[in-house]
């Protein structure tokens, strides 16, 4: 089980680091917490923030399902921040640094902090329509370089503090501060698989509690119901009495080879999320014009380059809302999913007022911005449309 966990931790960390620093990919679109941050805004006005996309929702759904089944497996097997924190503690252990353990009462109070942070992040993101959590997000410090924008210094500071703190305290960020941990805790509480302790054979040595990286008192529970359990299996491994600690599904008979089940579940969930992101055309930017909907609505689909984020999608709307020679009188709605390279843009319009050529021209032609007194060249290119045709 430990090997499985370390293989997955290493694999995800290497995937993240090579994806960001070698392939320069925007891995923020695979951050499950991005889905949490944007959910209220998406439900409110159909728009995601920055370059986040439908993949954030799919990976979030997959991880929530995983959590329902196996508690906080994401934190123990997949999260790169958790891996770094664990690696630091491991290093400290080898250097002979003893871990600091706050009193249980203090630990309980500190563990409430993540709920406060979650509430603050959700409210702040909705109010500011911006990913405010990035400023203190150690994960964004790791993956932000792939998003083609400056990573706030504060994010690096938090990552640095986390690295240092992890030398002295076991997984401080995961236990007390991580807002995504707070989300997962809600689902983890009803986790269908749990570690069970057979009080009849237990010799009360306390090794299981000592080994738990999340400092759960396994030795005092009949069944580990704590939401923060990572299903890391450290308690199972250190237990000196055979079959005293077992991993069970719905309190039934013990499950053999938990590592294999967990590995299969992770692979299945990630594959499902990746497939869903590729197959399900969920628009992550919907903009409806405030006009009366006509009886007949036509739709024009085109592949556009330059709609890379929520901001540039808004710029696309800005070009469609123009009032010059290329004004589009009958455009009604824009549905797209911003991303790199070419993205599909669906334009709904009143066919009695406009036609697809006018819509395309509005997107690609430069626009005189009277409010700012300047010309704006269109940053968009429509596949199959060559403005030079005829010249």
């Amino acid at each position: 089980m430990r090997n499985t966990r370390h293989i997955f931790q290493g694999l995800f960390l290497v995937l993240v680091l090579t994806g960001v620093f070698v392939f320069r990919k925007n891995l923020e679109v695979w951050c499950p917490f991005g889905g949490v941050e944007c959910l209220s805004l998406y439900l409110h006005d159909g728009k995601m923030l920055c370059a986040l996309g439908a993949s954030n929702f799919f990976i979030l759904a997959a991880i929530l399902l995983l959590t329902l089944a196996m508690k906080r497996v994401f934190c123990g097997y997949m999260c790169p921040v958790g891996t770094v924190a664990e690696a630091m503690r491991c290093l400290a252990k080898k250097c002979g640094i003893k871990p600091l353990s706050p009193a249980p009462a203090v630990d309980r109070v500190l563990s409430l902090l993540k709920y406060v942070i979650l509430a603050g992040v959700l409210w702040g993101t909705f109010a500011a329509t911006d990913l405010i959590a990035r400023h203190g997000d150690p994960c964004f410090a790791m993956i932000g370089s792939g998003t083609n924008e400056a990573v706030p210094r504060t994010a690096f500071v938090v990552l640095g503090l986390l690295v240092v703190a992890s030398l002295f305290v076991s997984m401080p960020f995961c236990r007390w501060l991580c807002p995504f941990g707070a989300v997962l805790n809600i689902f983890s509480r009803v986790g269908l698989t749990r570690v069970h302790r057979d009080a009849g054979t237990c010799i009360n040595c306390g090794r299981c509690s000592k080994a738990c990286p999340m400092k759960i008192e396994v030795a005092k529970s009949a069944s580990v119901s704590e939401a923060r359990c990572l299903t890391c299996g450290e308690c199972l491994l250190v237990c000196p009495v055979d079959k005293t600690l077992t991993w069970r599904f719905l309190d039934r008979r013990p499950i053999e080879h938990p590592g294999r089940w967990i590995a299969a579940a992770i692979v299945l969930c990630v594959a499902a999320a990746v497939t869903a992101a590729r197959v399900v055309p969920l628009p992550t930017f919907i903009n409806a014009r405030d006009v009366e909907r006509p009886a007949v609505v036509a739709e024009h689909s085109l592949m556009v380059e330059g709609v890379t984020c929520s901001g540039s999608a808004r710029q696309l709307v800005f070009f469609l809302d123009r009032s010059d020679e290329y004004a589009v009188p009958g455009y009604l709605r824009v549905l797209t999913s911003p991303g790199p390279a070419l993205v599909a843009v669906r334009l709904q319009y009143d066919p009695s007022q406009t036609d697809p050529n006018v819509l395309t021209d509005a997107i690609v032609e430069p626009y005189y911005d009277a409010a700012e007194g300047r010309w704006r060249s269109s940053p968009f290119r429509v596949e199959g449309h060559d403005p030079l045709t005829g010249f």
Partner: protein
Amino acid sequence: MRRLVLVALTIGMGIGVARAAEVRVDSPNDPNALALEQKVRQYIETDQNYQAAVTAYAQAARANPTVQYYRDQFALLRSVAKMQAALASETVPEKWKAYADAVRVYHYSKGYYQAALAVDQAAQAKFNDPSFAIRKIETLLLVGQDAQVQPLVPSLSQAAPAAVPARWRTLRPVVLAHTGQADQALAAVANLQIDAKTTPASLFDLARVYKASAKVDEALNCLRMFLEHTVPTEMATSRNMIILCADFRDLHDQAAFKTVLTTESKVAQSGCTGGSSCSSCSLKGKCSSSK
């Protein structure tokens, strides 16, 4: 493991090299590009043949598919040409003004002051209001047709102060300086409070007044501040105004003048280049492309 790392690094470097080769040129400065610019200027200013100018950019864009500049200029000029043509037939005053505005801004950005003057003259003849009179004066002074400025001055001097744009307070001293009244011009600007943020062009006027009074250092200082207060997207327009203005022609060889021309804008402006986030944009709250 080492081999894996090496393979990953090699792939990464390969991708980096391939991407570098794809980088597009934004603004050409080779002799061919400059010759094209001259040709387009002639088409627009002398021949007033917009179609030929648009075609010239289209041909350049076709011949240089990796140079985004030509495609942008082609698209821009094609829109301007449409609006220029619409000026002859548009009957809705507000639309006409909007088109005139857009066409004039383009001409100023390229330094086509004769073409801008034609728009200003048409606007002044059509609406005869102080703001268009001031625009016409501004362009007349730039092209050196000082004699035509004088007939416009009395109407502005007699108009109610509230109806006259603030720019007139600094443009009037330039008119004085251009009619040999440099001392009066200097006196007129002596205690003038200039809001550089809202009317940076007033600093350009001030520089011309100082230059007419042989106060070169003050003039250069005003030009520097003019560029500093110009929004980044208008820098080409402002630099063109300085370079093409006859008042500063004798300074062109001076190192201090060349240094002034390298001044960068200190105004924050949304680049809106389609990055992955608006979060780092200082103007995101005001940006017309964001909500």
